[in-house]
């Protein structure tokens, strides 16, 4: 069964350092989403791509976060510099069609980030 792949699964970094996460969506899925889930909260959308274009990045803290999906396939989310409050689970999801409402979104296992 096709799955969304994410790496690394766990990352520990010191504050002020740079960190990057990678996501490979299900093959053929045009839409890719990055979510952040803080412990005890539900996931919150950070950015969504349709192919290589950013559709919505209104919740992305652009002073320190950046995201790209250069060839419209895999994607990288970067944080520079990391802050203590960035400790969270970062989830990637993909969908075959543009479906921000959530129907048929498939999630990866996530990257657990701890900033010390």
């Amino acid at each position: 069964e096709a799955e969304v792949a994410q790496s690394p699964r766990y990352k520990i970094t010191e504050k002020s350092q740079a960190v990057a996460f990678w996501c490979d969506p299900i093959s053929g899925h045009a839409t890719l989403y990055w979510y952040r889930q803080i412990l005890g909260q539900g996931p919150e959308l950070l950015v969504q791509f349709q192919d290589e274009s950013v559709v919505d990045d209104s919740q992305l803290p652009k002073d320190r976060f950046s995201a790209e999906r250069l060839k419209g396939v895999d994607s990288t989310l970067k944080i520079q510099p990391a802050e203590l409050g960035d400790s969270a689970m970062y989830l990637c999801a993909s969908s075959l069609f543009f479906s921000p409402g959530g129907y048929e979104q498939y999630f990866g296992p996530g990257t657990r980030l701890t900033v010390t």
Partner: protein
Amino acid sequence: DQQVKQNSPSLSVQEGRISILNCDYTNSMFDYFLWYKKYPAEGPTFLISISSIKDKNEDGRFTVFLNKSAKHLSLHIVPSQPGDSAVYFCAASVRSGNTPLVFGKGTRLSVIA
């Protein structure tokens, strides 16, 4: 301001009994509602959804009920099984507006054998 609320952080149920997970929302524009299930160290998995034009949707042991006037939905699991133990997230969207999902904080269900 939390638009989707799951007021019970946890729920324990005996195996074989009914599990009822509740969710309230405040945004009357929401027209599509979903439940996701999440095991530790895994991403959320889509479980069941309901459109605002319906008041009930059933899939096997899982049924979602929607009460639009009360802005309330619930997920019923009958009969509950130990493998159902997970965190359940309620989510909502304005599907016609292509807006992102808004998730609740989740309810941790423990099914006791």
